[in-house]
């Protein structure tokens, strides 16, 4: 089969046409795909138990599926990485006061709703234990062991006066927004939780 071109001059073979379309599609994929890897990047912005929990379930499951995983901990999310024995972080009275109100560490994380002065998280933890769903504290360790890259946000650390020694071991070097964007850009899945 031959198809005439728009100018009416000459003709284009159907196989040539298919090749043209294939090439255009491949070019578009290369452009939009930006070398996307089998990778997931999650921005952990919220430090509440009921947000960090699914973040860590997805991270460990992705790692178990052979995906590369990066979790970028920013703003309230960063406090999930604070060492459990740390009661206070911060550099002056304001960030210190904020850290007392929001002491951080996964085991002290509150629920975003139905917290009831700690009754909510306790009940949820109890139910999860009965159903053998690992607690986020445990999931965080599992994630680290499985090679999930746990990345603190440099800007949040500076702003809130959180030092590297305030955070748990085994974390990646802190990064900024541009590097976080690069992590997201090369991932086939990006989530903001």
């Amino acid at each position, binding site marked *: 089969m031959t198809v005439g071109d728009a100018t009416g001059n000459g003709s284009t073979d159907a196989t040539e046409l298919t090749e043209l379309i294939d090439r255009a599609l491949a070019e578009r994929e290369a452009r939009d795909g930006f070398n996307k890897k089998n990778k997931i990047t999650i921005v952990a912005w919220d430090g509440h138990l009921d947000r960090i929990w699914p973040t860590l379930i997805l991270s*460990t*499951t992705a790692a178990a*599926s052979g995906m590369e995983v990066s979790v970028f901990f920013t703003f309230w999310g960063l406090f999930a990485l604070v060492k459990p024995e740390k009661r206070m972080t911060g550099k002056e009275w304001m960030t210190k006061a904020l850290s007392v109100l929001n002491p951080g560490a996964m085991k002290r994380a509150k629920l975003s709703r139905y917290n009831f002065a700690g009754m909510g998280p306790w009940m949820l933890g109890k139910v999860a234990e009965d*159903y*053998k769903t690992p607690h986020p504290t445990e*999931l965080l360790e599992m994630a680290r062991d499985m090679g999930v890259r746990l990345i603190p946000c440099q800007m949040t650390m500076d702003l809130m006066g959180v030092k590297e020694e305030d955070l748990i071991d085994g974390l990646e070097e802190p990064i900024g927004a541009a590097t976080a964007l690069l992590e997201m850009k090369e991932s086939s899945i990006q989530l903001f939780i």
Partner: protein
Amino acid sequence: MSITATTVDARGQSCPGPLVTLHRALKDGGPGDVFELLATDPGSKSDVPSWATLSGNELLEASHEDGVFRYLIRKA
């Protein structure tokens, strides 16, 4: 034909337990090795096939008996 499979017991565990346990067990095996995963988590019904698609490992067989899900997986 009989296949020798390494049994991975994830009974009693729930999401993401069985997949993490399976992943750990697979690390000790070589390509082509067959693993038998036992789980009681009903979520594994959809999650194990999805995991196979994501990870590139082959799900050979899935069955269910007396509340126990059994999966045969060949490591890629």
